[in-house]
């Protein structure tokens, strides 16, 4: 196995508040291999945005990685200063597609000017070379190249999203972090964006970390997936393994909460409650309050991520009842009256 491109090792991130430290991420581990598209899934409050911010230094001033390591190409980057991040990481190595693409371009500057500025900071490209390259990228993301000199307000929401995607691809980064890149868009627009990202995947070695609440998007576009709940990684592995054999109760339920247009009559699973806000150290499974199968042990310790089976590489789940989940799932099928049609490839 090669060295992972980006690796989180037992990362804990806390925010200092006047009520004490709030733990947004606790003991999270997972990694991204070169050339791979990886999805990080969780609902609001799961800590997924905090986790990605810790990589490129976007944490709020009261937030800090208090334990664990973030390794990029083997080098620890969690303690990098702003200057070091600017020098070594940002855009040269890791670029970023923000959630709020609508407001992420400077309204007072032409889009091309913003691209040229990035190029002048991070590369040796001349202005004309930079513009040439930016035009090519506009074409790749499905925008007309002669619109690079427009102001952001002249673009629609979907077009701004594409321009932001072009900027992320601009300097050939090794990794793109995309934070809910399509949440604000309509389905057709979302699919168009992913069409172009598919193209990137096919034609370059760039890896991507896709942060989203939408498990369908990850199943369709990524190879690896990590499911996050209440700051803990519940389960991680290849999308095929997790689809076929979800093991953590949260992944099992989350997967069944998503509508599948092929089975419009399937009853959707409901997960009661919300991810908890963790004050101080986390000493239990963050899903315990919402879990239908919680036992006493779940309150006493946070379960570690463990391999699920010998046969599935890299498939890990953090649940004390990993071995029993097949039986539990059966119970669920009965409870929810799930039709067999909902479980292809079993």
């Amino acid at each position: 196995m090669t060295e992972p491109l980006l690796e989180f090792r037992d990362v804990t991130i806390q925010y200092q508040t006047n009520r004490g430290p709030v733990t947004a991420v606790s003991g999270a581990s997972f990694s991204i291999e070169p050339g791979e598209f990886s999805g990080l899934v969780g609902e609001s409050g799961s800590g997924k945005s905090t986790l990605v911010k810790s990589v490129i230094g976007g944490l709020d001033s009261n937030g800090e990685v208090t334990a664990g390591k973030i390794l990029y190409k083997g080098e620890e980057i969690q303690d990098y200063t702003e200057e070091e991040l600017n020098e070594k990481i940002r855009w040269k190595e890791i670029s970023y597609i923000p959630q709020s693409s609508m407001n992420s371009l400077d309204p007072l500057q032409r889009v091309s000017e913003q691209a040229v500025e990035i190029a002048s900071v991070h590369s040796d490209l001349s202005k004309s070379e930079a513009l040439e390259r930016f035009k090519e990228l506009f074409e790749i993301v499905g925008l007309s190249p002669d619109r690079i000199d427009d102001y952001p307000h002249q673009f629609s929401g979907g077009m701004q999203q594409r321009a932001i995607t072009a900027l992320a691809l601009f300097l050939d980064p090794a990794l793109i972090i995309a934070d809910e890149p399509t949440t604000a868009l309509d389905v057709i627009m979302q699919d168009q964006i992913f069409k172009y990202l598919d193209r990137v995947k096919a034609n370059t070695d760039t890896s991507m970390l896709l942060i989203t609440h939408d498990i369908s998007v990850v199943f369709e576009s990524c190879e690896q997936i990590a499911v996050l709940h209440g700051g803990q990684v519940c389960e991680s592995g290849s999308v095929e393994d997790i689809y076929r054999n979800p093991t953590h109760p949260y992944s099992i339920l989350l997967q069944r909460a998503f509508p599948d247009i092929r089975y419009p009559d399937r009853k959707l699973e409901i997960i009661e409650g919300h991810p908890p806000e963790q004050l101080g150290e986390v000493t239990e499974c963050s899903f315990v309050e919402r879990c239908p199968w919680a036992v006493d042990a779940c309150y006493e310790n946070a379960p570690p991520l463990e391999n699920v089976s010998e046969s599935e590489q890299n498939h890990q789940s953090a649940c004390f009842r990993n071995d029993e989940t097949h039986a539990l799932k059966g119970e669920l099928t009965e409870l929810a009256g799930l039709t067999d049609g909902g479980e292809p490839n079993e």
Partner: protein
Amino acid sequence: MEVNPMNETPVLEIRNLEKYFTRKGGFLDSLFGSSKEPIRAVDDVSLALDQNEVQGIIGESGCGKSTLLKTVIGLTDPTGGDIFYKGKPLSEFSKRDWKEFRKNVQIIFQNPFESLDPKFTVRESLIEPLKIHDIEYSEERIHDALDRVQLNPPQKYLDRLPKQLSGGEKQRVSIARAIIVEPDVILADEPVSMLDVSTQAAILRLLSDLTEELGLSMLYISHDLSTVSDICDLIHVMYLGRVVETAPTNQILGQPRHPYSQALIDAIPIPDPFSDRPRTALDGSPPSPEELEAGCRFKDRCPERMPRCDTAPKKVETDPDQFTACHLHYEESDSRPNTEAALQGGNTQ
């Protein structure tokens, strides 16, 4: 207002509804000689909602679906066509009719975070519609409403302010507020789109159960076909102000006839890594509603574009109960004179 005992009259009917926004042309516009076309946000929309029926209106943002809802509920006046409540047109409403209508037609909005007055407790939010409609109420009625939306026990929630509720709980209170006056019709404007998926299913199921239990009719608006399939009996697909296709839910999901409906369904991601769904074939985004050309509004993005598309298509019954406004589905000889006004859909049944 009399109620037809046979229920043959739809509870709510919209006939050829139009809502055009004229852009403010003042003294200065005439100075610069720029006279502007009105924005046709809702253009010739017709539908009929029977008792205890749930219909969905699906379309991308900007297609006019929210304007349609606001027009139906009387927040803005239509510029053409009419709305009928139990057979009576809104344009002929007396003051009393309006009062009756406003009690019986309730709305639920998209954003749960702004749907409740931040200064009102849950109790006050629930009492307010009763007070406005001069309905006598008891503590029981309020408890009952919270019970129905599964906020248990009610005492726990009554004195909370909205900021002390989660998004899902807020939306439940909004629903309770809507049903507490015992309406006939609920208009729902994407009530789950801002909630987490784990909560979405719960709210959808709640709405579905409530319409069944209380015999409500509902008009449900959404941009997302996948979430409404469970709840709606009939679906209207809307594109740039017009309804392009109307069909029962399973029929439209299984065999969409309009290329736009097809594209909408094809673009929905499938939670299955083995599905191999092809990406959408559509490029670009909808044109601005400010500069619409004659003919079919979808023609510039349509993979099936033909010369005929420059005339407005009429709506034909392509399959039983399925109405589609597309030239693909009827011969030229069928077409009536191609003025837009003459081309009405047959979708009012």
